[in-house]
């Protein structure tokens, strides 16, 4: 077998093998197939191949257990996108739960359920807490001592807010005639209202 063929064969073997191949393994493999090449020759061929691929999109890399072809490190990020799946979307239930915690904190799960008219799944509360957007800040002293949820600094960071006052204004529901607001009204354009009616 000619030198060029041996080189082609070694190149192909390195590409086909599922694990890195050492010079010794390559030499043995050639011998088994009746191709007489010394380790020295094989090493030279491997070095030559590494040289050939220096500036290519894949490179011949020596790792602990031998040589393998791998993609050029700089391309990693962009190649990763081949396997990158599209980000999923949150459910309406989660969005509403988060919105209620953000706008009406501290709030219990019961409060959320009362407003939304449906039970809040534990998975949603777990998601929000794992995401670091929501945490328990205390308990309401009523029977069952329900946990009170509030948003976190991570939540503000995510939405690029300095504080909750920067949350977009929500169109006000029509005010009730009987409702009497506190005196601070002139200091803030938004109405501060008594919580007692909505708090259980």
């Amino acid at each position, binding site marked *: 077998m000619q030198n060029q063929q041996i080189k082609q064969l070694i190149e192909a073997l390195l590409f086909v093998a599922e694990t890195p191949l050492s010079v010794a393994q390559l030499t043995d493999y050639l011998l088994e197939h009746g191709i007489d090449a010394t380790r020295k020759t094989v090493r030279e061929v491997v070095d030559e191949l590494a040289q050939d691929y220096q500036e290519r999109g894949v490179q011949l890399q020596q790792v602990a257990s031998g040589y393998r072809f791998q993609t050029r490190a700089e391309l990693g990020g962009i190649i990763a996108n081949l396997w990158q799946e599209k*980000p999923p979307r*949150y459910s309406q239930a989660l969005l*509403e739960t*988060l919105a209620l915690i953000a706008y009406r904190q501290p709030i219990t799960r019961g409060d959320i359920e009362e407003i939304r*008219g449906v039970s809040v799944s534990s998975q949603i509360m777990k998601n929000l807490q794992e995401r670091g957007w929501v945490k328990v800040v205390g*308990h309401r*002293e009523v029977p069952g001592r329900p946990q009170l949820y509030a948003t976190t600094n991570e939540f503000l960071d995510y939405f690029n807010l300095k504080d909750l006052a920067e949350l977009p*204004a929500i169109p006000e529901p029509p005010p*009730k005639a009987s409702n009497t607001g506190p005196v601070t009204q002139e200091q803030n354009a938004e109405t*501060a209202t008594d919580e007692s009616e909505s708090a259980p």
Partner: protein
Amino acid sequence: MATSSSPPEQQSLPLGFVRGEPVIDKPEDLYIPPDALELILESFSGPMDLLLYLIRRQKLDIVDLPILPITKQYMEYVEMMKEMKLELAADYLVMAAMLAEIKSRMLLPKPPQEDDDEVDPRAELVRRLQEYEAIRAGASHLDEMPQAERDLVVVHADTDAKSLVQHQLPEIALAELAVAFSQAMAQAELQHHHQVQRERLSTRERMSRILDLLQTTQRLRFAELFEPAEGKQGVVVSFLAILELVKEALVDVVQVDAFSEIHITNREQVYAESTD
């Protein structure tokens, strides 16, 4: 057609494959040792294959299909197959019947007036043999094409890129949050008749912050909750938050003596201590 393009040595064409080995030559004589016969019969992929073999063995052109000797030889093979491999014979018997029919039509004297219209009774079989021969060539082309598993390996390079794949979390836009809030509230308006109104945010936020602080510290000095830097509005917000928390029974405001420092304690802590 096929014969003209064949090499002069007809026998050098593989006539079939026996256990993967091409059968180049076959005994001219019909007498074949039974074991070998079995192998040869297995090597035919069907009656057309056998028929084609018989024609080629005689170095004859398909279009001059020598129906009499071919039928005779074919029948002898079928007889042997009937003895040995009955389950194979059905398709071969159909062909045998067809050959017999063609043979009998060839032997019939033709009424002279029908000469123009009369089709050679062999025509249909010849057409099928020609087409079968073409397909056999196609099959051997396919066999010779480089095949993905036999002759080549599709290769891949290793890549660390997979480890760079990020588990993506869902994204939310701030506007979506506002919409979700109004949707939840609209739902509440429909479901409940009591009033649910927008809370002044800064107060609610301060309430959260105070509660949060009390998670780590058992008691807070009242003064600690007022940041002079926040100005008058900040003081009002903190004060309202404390009042709100007291009203919701979330914190206690404790003053040991008159004019001593006021402390805010977590009701939770008190509760926990008292139950111990």
